[in-house]
């Protein structure tokens, strides 16, 4: 089935078998190996990608269902080749990873949180990453990374989309 998928801002057309999951399509058709297959039944969150800014289990979605949506993978977060986004750098700063397998999913879930919530509490962060399992770190440094990133984004007055759920930057001050 011919589909047009908009991945990381680039429209890519492909002929994808209807039963192929979005995870498999991203990895095999588009060679974007950042999304990882952890459990392949929607429990672990290693396959997390953003569809229209919302974290989604790409292992539970058919690639053809993503036609017409904006898909963001971990490869799409870097502001420029060789650079890291604020959240990615925060994970480096607080050592929020060991093996790195859960990390792309964690970062994307954190990114979605910080787009809608400018001043997340620790409970907000724990809730946001509750769908991402980490077997290595014990989560402490991951939560620290998100807190650190939230602080840096606030101080940099980074524009965030104004949404119904979160506070705008003006309200957060």
């Amino acid at each position: 089935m011919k589909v047009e998928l908009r991945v990381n801002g680039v429209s890519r057309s492909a002929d994808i078998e209807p039963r192929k999951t979005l995870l498999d399509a991203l990895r095999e058709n588009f060679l974007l190996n950042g999304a990882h297959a952890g459990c392949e039944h929607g429990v672990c969150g290693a396959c997390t990608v953003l569809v229209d800014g919302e974290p989604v289990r790409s292992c539970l979605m058919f690639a053809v269902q993503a036609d017409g949506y904006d898909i963001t993978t971990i490869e799409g977060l870097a502001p420029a080749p060789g650079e890291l986004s604020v959240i990615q750098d925060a994970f480096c700063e607080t050592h929020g990873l060991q093996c790195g397998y859960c990390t792309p999913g964690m970062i994307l879930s954190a990114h979605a949180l910080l787009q809608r919530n400018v001043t997340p509490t620790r409970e907000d962060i724990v809730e946001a990453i509750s769908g991402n399992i980490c077997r290595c770190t014990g989560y402490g440094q991951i939560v620290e990374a998100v807190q650190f990133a939230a602080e840096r984004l606030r101080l940099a007055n980074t524009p965030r989309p104004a949404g119904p759920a979160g506070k705008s930057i003006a309200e957060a001050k």
Partner: protein
Amino acid sequence: MSADPATFRFVSTNRRVREDRRFVAGQGHYVADVALEGMLHVAVLPSQHPAARILSIDASEALAMPGVHYVLT
């Protein structure tokens, strides 16, 4: 065991990730990311018995199946 913390080079020092930056960018090269020409896949056959002695292995039926290239025992 009573070393002075001020002399530690790594313990309790800056924990910033340096050479592993690629993982936050999704550039980790895991086993599932390996794709070589002519690559085959492994199917593991576990034992049917919890504790037993292997007397012999007859892989002829498996090797006769289409797509089976090798049986490693």
